[in-house]
């Protein structure tokens, strides 16, 4: 791996060296490293590009890193990764994609991740998207996440895109069974002429299922963001989604919630707030000695923390 790829790896996965536990590192469309453990197996797909990650039932406190880095301008790829998480597991999965584009051709990565989480298993899934390079070629990322939660399963997904991605369409769908819970925390910042689209669709199918979607975003300069969330309650369940956005300069943000209750005990809530930074927040920080620009940076940093 070269220096650019190592930098991308650090940005998206916080890795300086090879991680502990199971991992699969993909660089410029090829496997750059893999490790499996007694409980976690990683198998290359035969019919298409991608891997199967199989986690044995009862696996606790283990992690899997599957970062992807692209530094070759013009490379476009679609990768299919399937995660099979056995019953009663408690694991952390860290994905993430970094694109460095120093050329003029568009680089694109589409990761299609499917999660099959068995009964009572617990998963923390973290994905981070990052772009760098001063080439004129676009950096495009279109992650698709499909989540199937069995009875009593729980998945928490943290998804972060702070810098450098020109265009992204992020689609997440989920079905949640009895007693299962899904939490998604999304953080996005766009600037320049970037475009980011988020699309969540969650079906709560079992009694006492729950979902909580939390999106915090900052749109700067002339960037555009669209946040769409669809929550469908087909049973006695709790659904909550929240879109909180700071808009700056000439940016544009749309929040489009859709709640559907197909059961008398489906409890669904959506909250959305879009607005510029409150004047009194800037003034408060300025009375502490910060300039207006520094105050703005602190507010944005805190908001996306």
């Amino acid at each position, binding site marked *: 791996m070269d220096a650019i790829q190592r930098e991308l790896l650090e940005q998206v996965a916080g890795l300086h060296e090879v991680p502990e536990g199971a991992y699969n590192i993909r660089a410029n469309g090829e496997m750059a490293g893999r490790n499996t453990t007694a409980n976690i197996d990683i198998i290359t797909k035969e019919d298409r590009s991608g891997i199967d990650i199989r986690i044995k039932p009862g696996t606790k406190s283990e992690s899997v890193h599957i970062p992807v880095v692209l530094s070759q301008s013009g490379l476009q790829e679609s990768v299919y990764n399937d995660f099979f998480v056995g019953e009663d597991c408690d694991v952390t999965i860290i994905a993430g994609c970094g694109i460095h584009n120093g050329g003029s051709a568009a680089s694109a990565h589409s990761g299609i991740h499917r999660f099959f989480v068995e009964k009572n298993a617990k998963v923390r899934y973290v994905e981070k998207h990052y772009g760098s390079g001063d080439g004129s070629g676009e950096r495009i990322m279109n992650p698709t996440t499909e989540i199937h939660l069995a009875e009593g399963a729980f998945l928490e997904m943290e998804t972060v895109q702070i810098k450098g991605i020109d265009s992204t369409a992020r689609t997440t769908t989920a079905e949640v069974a009895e007693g299962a819970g899904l939490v998604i925390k999304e953080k996005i910042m766009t600037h320049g002429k970037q475009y980011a689209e988020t699309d969540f669709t969650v079906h709560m199918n079992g009694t006492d299922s729950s979902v909580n979607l939390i999106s915090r975003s900052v749109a700067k300069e002339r960037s555009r963001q669209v946040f769409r969330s669809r929550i469908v309650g087909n049973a006695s369940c709790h659904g909550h989604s929240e879109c909180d956005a700071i808009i700056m300069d000439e940016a544009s943000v749309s929040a489009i919630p859709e709640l559907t209750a197909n059961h008398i005990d489906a409890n669904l809530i959506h909250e959305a707030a879009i607005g510029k930074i409150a004047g009194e*927040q800037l003034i408060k*920080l300025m*009375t*502490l*000695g910060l300039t207006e620009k520094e105050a703005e940076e*602190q*507010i944005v940093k*805190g*908001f996306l923390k």
Partner: protein
Amino acid sequence: MLELKNISFQAEDGGKEIEILRNINLKIEDRFVAVTGPNGSGKSTLAKIVAGILTPTEGQILLDGVDITDRSITERAQMGISFAFQQPVRFKGITVKDMLSIAAGRETTVPEVCDMLSEVGLCARDYVNREINASLSGGEMKRIEIAMIMARKTKVSIFDEPEAGIDLWSFQNLIRVFEKMHAETQGTILIISHQERILNIADQIVLLADGRIEKVGGREEVMPDLLGTGQPCRTLTDKLIQ
């Protein structure tokens, strides 16, 4: 020393110019200076003018002889003016420790933050990493606001009704905080307050009424005017006579 020369402030309300402050002349150099007066007398406006949040329509503000009338909020803060808001501002994602670090102008350590919070009567351990968001009560926000001013250690510290909403914390503690601040900074503490117990510690009291200075002087001079001299409410006295 802070000096206000001929400060006037007008605001527009429904197309009409309203005079909020007129011809305020004031020298502030004592340890504790209290500004008091009825609601709407212009107390908060005066404080905001000193902090640079509002620009006076006329007049000059001098800090240690330097004209700061045209200086920004940031410049005044850097020159040594602090301002504790009457209604503290909330921030999503910024923690108590972050805020105290910004106030102190450097990264503070956890033990330092704990000391500052204990001074304002908060159990430090529970607050260091709390966000300054809607989950904090009004009273908690008020105390953190005071801690921020303590962290700044500036020569002029302005408090806009610091006692409001902190009823469970004794006045004695609040007064001790002011005394400690003065001991550390040797500066002036300007307090806007209606509270007799706060006025009682003031070296100088400024009484505002209807945008003008009604009276200014030591507490022995001004306090008697404040207590028991207000016009009684006619509706109530009429009832009593009946």
